[in-house]
């Protein structure tokens, strides 16, 4: 590669990041506006029915209309998810986390997953499920990044002669990092939070130059979203328009003596988060065990949506609180209230979920009575628990924020009751915010990225101290009971993800005890028959093999995909001249979907030919001595993103191979 080509590749990296940023922002715009419009339309229909029926005793009609619309919308999401791309279910953050950790998750960055994710999240949010759009936006950003950086779409059989250099896992992972950051930036309007999210979830392969590129990507994403949303809100071009701040602008302040109250709220958040995770864990286990038929999965989603709609309707029906019109600008549903008043519960259900969070944060002190909040938060908690893990795209941030904001506001009201005339107790917004942060922190157990996301989404840096401490306390309290919800789902899916730290008390474990043995090896020059036998053996469907010479010394490493391509192109010693070599481009071209062995036709004659692997093998792979300790192996895997590590003895002979799963098993089941 010439110096010029190298330069060109560097420039291409920046170009791709710019593209990822802008397109992620655009996708976020599409999701946002569709959700707003669909929700508005749905609520208009239901409102008209309610207005008609309040006076003529037919309230069951709006209830049925509501249930039908919700079930219909959610069914679209469920059908897509179940039958097109099951990996698009849930928030997508666990999947992206696994991908960035170095695990190969099938289909996670495919175009159909992207499509399912986007359409599904629009349908499920506007279908009134207790879900948010944030997690799926992050996933969508990641898929876009993976797609753009490869310069082609295999689904549409489109291949551009662009970005060929990036067609391998390592480069792709960097771009997916950028895409996830852009997704966070678009979802919360938090560019720095996006970068830190990528750092927190993918810190294993971090480098400083990448940070700067990713920052550009997330800034572009967040501002292209802002630009288009400002047009949508008729403040065209006003990028500092306060309506664009995700949770509304927080302007209040707090006193030092309120910090202990906040800490206490952190403890509550940790407890409630742990409870949420525990219940969701049980439900997920039940689901995995009993709801296995695809048709039943769709039915389950529909049932949840029907129950959600009914609960929402009954809450409004039973809620006795009416407030004078105008306290909440978004809602004017009268329902059973007197003329000139609106049902306060409606401000939580007749708006997109983000606006409900904003209402709980910012509506004035008297706008929600304690009873209304309790009636709201108790059922919502369980419904949200029940919803996460269904076969629909579903973010977890907004439900957690809603629950937290509700009980946080309740605490704020209590404080106000204790000290009605104090200046510090007049502002319930800060309690709602701290409650939301505590609940979210207790559920997902993210740390720095969540703090920064919340700071950016509220536009107030002065809350950083309480937010950080509260998130820390919530995480500690929650970790005392169980894992974060994403980790729980990763474990339930049995994905070999590596934690930040090596398994504890493993310093005396050596490679000998961890490795898989005996390792399947191939020779430098070997018979086609042997290679076919190795590749077709169902017991060792490994993705790579150590290569040895005649004396059994370790010479290098060859990937399964490389062997397959060699077989397919019939690069046999007997058939080709000494200088005929496959180009690197040939290997890149078939990335990332490799064909199975069965489509390679090898005749009887060819079986007896030889293949010289030497030009193609990796002559200097990572190896480790059989006496190396487990923490050392772990750190190699974690820091370099390895998938396999060859264990050699003193004579440089292959004695075994360590894979990700070996380490993971040791961490989780090793003690037995």
């Amino acid at each position, binding site marked *: 590669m010439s110096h010029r080509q190298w330069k060109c590749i560097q420039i291409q990296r920046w170009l791709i990041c710019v593209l990822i940023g802008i397109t992620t922002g655009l996708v976020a715009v599409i999701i946002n506006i569709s959700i707003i419009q669909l929700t508005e339309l749905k609520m208009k229909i239901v409102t008209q029915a309610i207005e008609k029926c309040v006076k003529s005793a037919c309230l*069951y009609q709006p209830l049925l209309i509501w249930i039908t619309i919700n079930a219909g919308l959610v069914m679209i999401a469920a059908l897509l998810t179940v039958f097109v791309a099951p990996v698009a279910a849930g928030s997508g953050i666990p999947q992206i986390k696994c991908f960035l950790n170095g695990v190969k998750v099938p289909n996670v960055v495919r175009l159909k997953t992207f499509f399912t994710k986007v359409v599904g999240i629009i349908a499920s949010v506007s279908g009134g499920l207790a879900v948010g759009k944030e997690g799926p936006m992050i996933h969508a950003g990641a898929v876009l990044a993976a797609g753009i950086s490869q310069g082609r779409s295999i689904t549409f059989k489109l291949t551009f002669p662009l970005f060929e250099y990036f067609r391998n896992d390592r480069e792709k992972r960097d771009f997916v990092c950028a895409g996830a950051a852009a997704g966070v930036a678009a979802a919360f309007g938090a560019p720095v939070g996006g970068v830190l999210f990528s750092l927190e979830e993918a810190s294993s392969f971090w480098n400083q130059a990448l940070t700067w590129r990713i920052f550009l990507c997330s800034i572009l994403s967040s501002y292209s979203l802002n630009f288009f949303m400002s047009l949508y809100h008729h403040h065209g071009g006003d990028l500092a328009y306060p309506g664009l701040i995700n949770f509304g602008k927080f302007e209040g302040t707090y006193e030092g003596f309120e910090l202990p109250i906040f800490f206490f709220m952190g403890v509550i958040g940790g407890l409630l988060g742990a409870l949420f995770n525990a219940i969701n864990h049980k439900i997920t286990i039940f689901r995995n065990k009993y709801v*296995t038929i695809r048709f039943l999965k769709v039915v389950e989603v529909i049932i949840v949506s029907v129950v959600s709609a009914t609960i929402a309707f009954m809450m409004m029906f039973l809620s006795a609180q009416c407030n004078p019109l105008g306290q909440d600008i978004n809602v004017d549903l009268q329902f059973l209230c*007197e003329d000139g008043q609106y049902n306060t519960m409606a401000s939580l259900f007749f708006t997109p979920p983000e606006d409900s969070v904003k209402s709980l944060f910012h509506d004035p002190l008297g706008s929600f009575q304690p009873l209304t909040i309790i009636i709201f938060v108790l059922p919502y908690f369980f419904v949200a628990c029940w919803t996460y893990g269904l076969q629909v795209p579903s973010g977890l941030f907004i439900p957690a924020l809603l629950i937290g904001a509700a009980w946080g506001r309740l605490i704020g009201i209590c404080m106000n009751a204790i000290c009605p005339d104090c200046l510090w107790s007049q502002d319930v917004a800060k309690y709602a915010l701290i409650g939301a942060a505590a609940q979210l922190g207790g559920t997902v157990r993210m740390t720095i990225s969540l703090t920064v996301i919340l700071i950016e989404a509220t536009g107030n840096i002065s809350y950083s101290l309480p937010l950080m401490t509260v998130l820390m306390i919530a995480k500690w309290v929650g970790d005392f009971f169980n894992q974060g919800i994403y980790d729980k789902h990763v474990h339930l899916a049995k994905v070999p993800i590596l934690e930040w730290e090596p398994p504890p008390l493993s310093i005396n474990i050596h490679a000998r005890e961890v490795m898989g043995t005996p390792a399947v090896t191939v020779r430098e020059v070997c018979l086609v028959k042997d290679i076919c036998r190795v590749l077709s053996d169902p017991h060792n469907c490994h993705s790579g093999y150590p290569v040895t010479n005649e004396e059994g010394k370790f010479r290098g490493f060859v990937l399964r995909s490389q062997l397959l391509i060699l077989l397919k192109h019939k690069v046999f010693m007997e058939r080709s001249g000494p200088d005929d070599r496959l180009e690197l481009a040939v290997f890149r071209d078939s990335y990332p979907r490799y064909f199975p062995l069965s489509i390679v036709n090898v005749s009887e004659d060819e079986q007896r030919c030889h293949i010289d692997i030497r030009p193609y093998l990796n002559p200097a792979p990572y190896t480790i001595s059989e006496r190396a300790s487990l923490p050392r192996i772990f750190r190699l895997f974690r820091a370099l993103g390895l998938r396999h590590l060859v264990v050699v003895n003193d004579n440089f002979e292959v004695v075994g191979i360590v894979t990700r799963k070996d380490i993971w098993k040791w961490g989780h089941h090793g003690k037995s």
Partner: protein
Amino acid sequence: MEDMYLKFLAEKCRSESKNNAMPFEETLQPSAILSESDTSICIQEVHSEKASDVAHFEAFEEKSLSLQNIEIFQNETDATFTHMSNNVFPQSENDGNSTFISEVDDSENVKRRNSHEGYNMLATKFPDKNITKISGTKYVKYKTSAFNSSFNEFWVEVVPETVNVAEGRVPKECMKFLFAFSNATSDFIDCAVTNARPLHYCQKCAEKYVKVQEIYKLIFKDVSEGGMKGCKELILRADNIQVVLMTYDFVTSIWSKSTCDNCFNVSYKNHTKVYNVTKEAKLLLKKINNTMDCFRDFASGIFPSNQTSDSNSTVCTMCINLYCDANDLYDQIERDKLLCSDLIDSMNYTRLDWGKKYNCTIAVIDKGEVWIITAIVCFLPIMFYVGAWLCKTKCLCHSQVVETES
């Protein structure tokens, strides 16, 4: 240069404060040098002529001397000082007897004030001698209660010929603007506050709002009589407080927050805005008034309520048509986004009376069907999960049976 002059002034202040214990004169009583501990302060002040008039005059302060002026007056005597001011403001002939004297504090119409309190001052520290020089001019403005629509008439009435407006740097043409603006805004605010409850200021104060807008526009266009320019700069941006701008913003914010414009058809006649109340607003107000009249009549028992035992039900049955009429029209106007705060407020209170006071809101609650649907829906998940569980265990049993058989 500047320093030299300031020194000179300071010296002058001192010498005069020693020598010139000038007695109080009845007419123009110019300024003073107060010696306060170690700081000498020069105050240049213009007063009105008669003690009896003071009560009717409102103090009006304006920053007068700036460093530029000081430079102009450098090395000049008092006489030239007067001459200069007459040159700048040729119309005001009989002012300008300003001299530097020490303040005399024994008269009733020259109230000694703490110089920090009443004057908008320009203060310059003397670096070497630790002397602060402060200058301030006191203006007087005639307080008029009547507002004349004609701008020029207004001016004539407001500023009596005898009043000294020439001190300071604002020429008479600009002062006209300032006075006019002052009166227009105070009229508007007066109107808005008196009509705040019940809220009717959109209808009642539109004319006054237009006046404020017009005068502001004149100031902003910066064209005064005789084609003189520069008033905009002097009025709007002369100091760091910018009271005129603040006041204007305040007035417009009242108007726009109440979305008053929605209730008017704005047309232009002779380049001035004319506000006409819209048809819809008129009609709605009329309907609301009728409804309220109906309520009041029944509540006060003008109409006999002895047909039924419950007087409230009579209100509800008798006024329902009027009320619904008004309510429907209101909803329609709301959909067209033509509401202003007058209408919103009137309707809110009508609705509150209807609902709270007379309990007339009808809400027919049909609990039966809603509860049945809820029960069915709650039953669904239980059925589903039990079914799934049963199916699975049965299938498992079945497959186990098959396995053992085979």
